[in-house]
Structures are given as C-alpha cells and as structure tokens.
C-alpha cells in the first residue's frame, strides 16, 4: 500500500485515492488529426522506472494530486498540486 502525501490533506492511505494515469500527456490541437488523438487517448509509455501520474483524492479533498512514483519499487519521490512541476529523479 502507498501513503500519498496530499498537498492539502497530508499523508493519506492509497485507498482514499483513484489512480488516473499519466500526468504528462497533453491534449493535441483540435486539428491535429485522428492519429494524434488516438495516441492522446490510448497510447501510454508504461515505463519501468519513474512515472509522473495523477491520483485523484476522491475520498478526501477531491483534488487531483500529481505524484512521481517508481513503477517497480513503488517509491514516491514527490507529490504536488496539479499545476506544480515536480523533479523526476535520474533513476
């Protein structure tokens, strides 16, 4: 189990959160074409290593929390608000 440090609520149990995927994808321009939108919706890198992702604090303040998590060790390097830019460790 993770303990995720919500920027508003403090450390909370993983069960209070809903995982909402890669926090680095950006919506393409509206005229970018079907392939760009396919990638935006479906294609993910699924890395073995550090991953910047969304965890929605659904059971608490209902805010989207940005989390830098290692997908193999589950170590959490940092958390922040949606607009924060979080440093990602080298490896």
């Amino acid at each position: 189990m993770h303990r995720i440090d919500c920027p508003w609520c403090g450390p909370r149990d993983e069960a209070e959160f809903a995982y909402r995927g890669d926090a680095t994808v950006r919506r393409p321009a509206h005229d970018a074409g079907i392939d760009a939108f396919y990638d935006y919706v479906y294609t993910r890198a699924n890395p073995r290593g550090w991953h910047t992702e969304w965890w929605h604090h659904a059971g608490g303040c209902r805010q989207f929390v940005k989390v830098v998590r290692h997908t193999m060790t589950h170590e959490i390097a940092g958390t922040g608000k949606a607009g924060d830019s979080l440093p990602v460790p080298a490896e």
Partner: protein
Amino acid sequence: MCAAEPRSPLSVVAVPAHPMIAELPSAIVDIAARRGRAGDLAAAIRAEFGLDLPPPGRFAASGDTTAVWIRPETWLVMAPRGAEGALARRLVETAAGAASVVDQSHGKTRVRLAGAAAPRVLAKGCRLDLHPAQFGPGQAAVTPMAQVGAVLLQRDATPAYELVVGSSYAVPFLEWLTDSAAEFAGTH
C-alpha cells in the same frame, strides 16, 4: 412558499441509543469561494459571524456556528437547525456574490461521538491516526469512515468528535457507529 421541514433520516428507523452518540440536528451549508474572491469571502464571514474561515485540516467556531475546511476554498458551515433555509439565506447575503452557496441541510446528517473510548470506536473504520499526538481539538479531516465519505472534526479533548455524512448513508453509518461503540457502553 413553504418548504417542508427536513426530517432526520434517523427518525424513521430504530438505531439503538448509545450514551456516547447523539445526532446534532443542524443547518449545513456548503460555501465555495468564486475565483479570486476567497479574501472577500473571508472578510465578509469574519464581519458577520466573527470567525476566520480555517485552513486545510482545521475548523473554526464562533458561538454555535462552525466552519469546516472540506476542499480548497470551500467550507461547510453548520449551526443548530433553525428556520428552514435561514442559514443559507444569511450566507448568500453575507457572501454577496463572493461564493457559491448550497444548502445541504437535507442532504447531510451531523452526529456527535464523545467519550474517552471515542478514538477506539472510530479506529475500527478510520484510516487516520486519532492518537492525541496526531489529531486533536480544532483539527478536521475529510476521509472515508467505515466506507462512508465523512467529514470528521474533533471538538474538544474529551475527546468529542463530530461526523457529517450523507443523509442517504446516515442509517447504515449510525448502525456501524453504534455497533462499534457497543463494547464501550459501560466504560465511556
């Protein structure tokens, strides 16, 4: 126009009485600051109610009115049940456009749990550490309690807690709370 008086969801079933537990019939109103207006809202609430809207993880009280932080720039304001809609109207007039105001009095139910054993009653359904070193008077949290979304606050060092849950969940929540407290009925 005359709106129906809210009826407690707890009035229609027989949850066994427990000396540590009591419903607090309340007016409960959600106020969310409009974009860029949190400072105006705080000043207006301070002037009208004599309380400072609290930061995350806290509540503030003045007289019989309590404001609990529940989300960024959003609070639940609670007071003993008065005339239907009166607290919401007072908050609309006070906020004067600085906040969205939603009357939750029918939708939420407020319960008090007090006694030395209260942290152990809650521990069976709560993920937060309620040890006095971690959680004390003045603190509040939004957290699932026995699988039910709840607002929790600690009123004093008795310890006395208050819990606010959706009225639809109030009956099963009270059944859980009463059951959890049963073993402490003679020791509170």
